[in-house]
Every structure is written in structure tokens, then in C-alpha cells.
């Protein structure tokens, strides 16, 4: 069976798995965004708390995904939930860190101006600070999305959803007829999906820029925790786990 014939014959299954894959990644990134932005809001004015929060998020990202999944299935059982939780944990660091950076890099004159015209803390955050930090936060979201796309494939081993099933089927069939097709469709499918979603997020960024050129994150290598400087770079390219 050629690759195209293979795609044809499994069209529905593959489409379903792709959709599942996209869904769980986007769900975990959405969760991580909510959690990450909240933690950032809570800590960004306190260097100590900031360091502790990013340090913990960085440590989570350091734990191999296979191990993290293993640890999570003990309390959560096999299936969807441990994968979702693991992905959310991995997606946290880039978003958290970029939100903190985005918020701390806002010109203090602007927040002062907001206070000066009588805005309260919450209003200032909602109408001035978060919109200004948004492009940087979105960059973090893009990095997280790219990274979790690849990691989500492992989820299939603990009965999570998505294209990882194709890869593990290919592994199980090693030497069999469709082994290559399965591994290929699983791997390439994830890559294509990741790139598509990234383009979509980039478009979202363009649409949501608040009357300013998107302040793409200055290429400033971040040296402390384990990640490449690319975490902070405009083109997301954080090394994924596995």
C-alpha cells in the first residue's frame, strides 16, 4: 500500500485522531494560559516569588514526559486525564515566563499614567498592562503549543488521544506492511498540525494587536532555566520533550 492509499483507506480514523490531537493540545494550552497568567499576575511584582514560580515550572519541564505520565497514571489512571494534566504542566513554563517578562517590561510611565487618570489596579491590568503584554504572552503560547504537539504523541502509550496511536501502532507492527505508513502519518501529521496551528496563532496575534506593531519579543536569550533562548524568541523553537 502506498502512503496515499494508506491515507485514503484510513481517512476517517486519521481525521478523528488529528482532531483529538489538536483538541487535547489546545485544551492544555488554554488551561496553561489561564494558570500561567494568573500565577504571573500574582508573582510578577515580587522577584522572589517570580523566581520560585518559574523555577518550579522549569523543573516540571525538565521531567521526562514518559516519567511524568507514569507518575500521573498512578493517581489518575490510564486515558485522557493524565495526558491533559501532563501537557498542561509542560505548557506552563513558556507562558508563565513570557507573561512575567511582558508585564515587567511595560514602560512604568504607562502604568503610572493609568494610575494617574484614576484607574484601579484591576482596571489598569485589564485595560493597559495585559493588552500591552499580550504579544509577548502570545509568543509564549505559540512556543507551548509547538512543544506540547510533539509530547502529546506519547500520551497514546497511556491510552491518551491523538496521532500518537499511529506511531505506536507502527512500532507494534515493526516489520509489518503498514509500519512505515503508520509511523510516517503519525510523525508528519503531528508536524503539519503543529505548523498549521502556529500559523493560525500568528494570525490571531496579527488580529489582536492593540493599535501597535506586534512587539515581538526582543531576541534576548534567557539563560537561567533549562530552555533554549528561543523560548523568548519570536519564532518559537523550544526543544520539545519527547
Amino acid at each position, binding site marked *: 500500500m502506498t502512503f496515499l492509499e494508506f491515507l485514503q483507506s484510513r481517512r476517517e480514523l486519521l481525521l478523528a485522531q488529528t482532531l483529538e490531537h489538536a483538541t487535547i493540545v489546545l485544551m492544555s494550552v488554554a488551561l496553561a494560559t489561564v494558570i500561567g497568567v494568573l500565577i504571573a499576575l500574582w508573582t510578577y511584582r515580587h522577584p522572589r516569588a517570580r523566581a520560585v514560580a518559574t523555577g518550579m515550572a522549569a523543573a516540571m519541564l525538565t521531567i521526562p514526559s514518559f516519567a511524568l505520565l507514569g507518575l500521573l497514571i498512578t493517581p489518575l489512571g490510564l486515558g485522557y486525564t493524565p495526558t491533559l494534566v501532563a501537557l498542561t504542566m509542560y505548557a506552563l513554563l513558556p507562558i508563565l515566563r513570557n507573561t512575567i517578562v511582558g508585564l515587567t517590561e511595560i514602560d512604568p510611565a504607562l502604568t503610572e499614567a493609568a494610575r494617574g487618570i484614576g484607574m484601579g489596579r484591576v482596571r489598569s491590568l485589564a485595560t493597559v498592562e495585559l493588552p500591552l503584554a499580550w504579544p509577548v504572552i502570545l509568543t509564549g503560547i505559540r512556543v507551548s503549543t509547538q512543544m506540547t504537539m510533539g509530547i502529546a504523541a506519547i500520551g497514546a502509550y497511556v491510552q491518551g488521544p491523538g496521532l500518537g496511536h499511529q506511531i505506536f501502532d507502527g512500532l507494534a507492527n515493526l516489520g509489518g506492511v503498514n509500519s512505515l505508513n503508520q509511523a510516517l502519518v503519525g510523525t508528519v501529521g503531528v*508536524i503539519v498540525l503543529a505548523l498549521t496551528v502556529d500559523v493560525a496563532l500568528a494570525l490571531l496575534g496579527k488580529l489582536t494587536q492593540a493599535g501597535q506593531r506586534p512587539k515581538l519579543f526582543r531576541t534576548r536569550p534567557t539563560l537561567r532555566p533549562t530552555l533554549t533562548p528561543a523560548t523568548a524568541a519570536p519564532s518559537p523553537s523550544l526543544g520539545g520533550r519527547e
Partner: protein
Amino acid sequence: MSSAAETQAAATVLTPPSRWRGLLRRHAPMPAILAAVLLATYLWVSATDLDDIERRALEADKLLRAAGEHVTLAAQTTVLVVAIAVGGGILLTRPSLRWLAPFATALANIGQATPAIGLLVLLSIFLGIGSSTALIGLVAYSVLPVLQNTIVGINQVDRHLIEAGRGIGMSPIAVLLRIELPLAVPVILAGVRTALVLAVGVATLATLINAGGLGSLIVTGIKLQRETILVTGAVLTAALALTLDWLGGVISDLLRPRGLD
């Protein structure tokens, strides 16, 4: 020429906080936490009534052998990756080859979204299963961040410094060795550290293509539904990754050229 105030101000700058104290403060918590977690796991396993399968899987020499395989695989990967990626990064920042760098970046972006397990399975289909395939997969997977960091690290060196170096008569090689590389060291090391963590992580999957490592415990634990084996494997893997990352952090702090902030 320089006023007294200037001299005084500079003198206060001159007394840096003890390097060691800073190192200790930044790096001491992690080993303590790891030791506590490992101890807790050990106590928990000791207190549990183990069956035959569990007892056999958790024998000390088996654990040591798995950990050894794991570390070896990760270490080999890191050495190869540094050689390939730093060399490649240097080449891709030379004026004559600079036009190739965007391709490396694009490749790195794709590589980031690539599922490592997919890469390992694809490689196994072509090269057969085993440790050498795992090594190739690990290298291919972790080379890109280091390559990209080397390129970023060298390119972020202030071009005026390079001009100044050339202007006082340093040869291109001297500029590379004495200015560009030393100033890129922190960024390159950050990349190496990432690669190390990636390698430890992907090495967990090596067991799936018969290349051993601590992942085997996790696989056994899941397959045979033995919580103790699963948790022990997962904790050991996580602890190993965190330890190596910690070590990487300490080393890169030590190798950081002075004079940089």
C-alpha cells in the same frame, strides 16, 4: 582626570558579592529536594509488601544497570551534539555560509514539534532497533537547539566588538576564538543544557526500541500494572533529569566569562 567621586563609585562596583555564595544560594535547593524525594520513594517501596515480579524488577543491580545505560546514552548524545552543533553553528555564522542559517532555524522549528517517539520508530524501521539507532535518534533530536543557540549566541555578539577586533588587527580566527566564542559561551551552554535534558528525556523512550535505560521500568510498570515499579522508574528518571540539569546549571555558571551581566 577622574574625579574622586568617580573613583569611589568604581571602587564600590569592584567588590562583587562572593561568587560561591551566589552559586550556593541558587543551586543548593535542588539537591536537597531530590534527596528528599528519593528517600521518600525508597521508604515507600521498602514499606510496601512486594511480590516476586516487583522484587525482581527492583533489584539494585538491575536499577543501576538501567540507570547506567540511561546516563551513557545521554552522555554520548551530549558529546556528539556539542561537537556537531557547535561546529555547525560556527560554520553557519561565517559570512560565506551565513545565508544557510535561516534554513537551520526553520529546521529547528519543525524539529521542535516533531514527536521524538515518531522519530525513533521511523529510524528503527530503516536502521533496525537497538542502542545505535537510539543514539542516532537522540542526536538528531537534540542537535537542533544547540545549533540554534550557537548561531544566536555568536550572532548576538555586538558587531562593534568584532569590528574593533578586526580594526586592531585580529585575524578572523582570533576574533572567533577570543571574542565571538567566549562571549557566546553562556548562550551555547544554555543550549547544551537543553540538549542534555532532551537527551535524558528521549532516552526514556529508548526502551521501546530495545535500547534499555530507566524507561524499561516505566514500561514494565505500566504493562504489568505494578505501581511500585512504575513509580520507582518514573521517580528515578525524573531525578536523573533534574540532577543532570542541575549539574548543567552549576557548570554553566562556573564557565561563564567574567565581565558579562
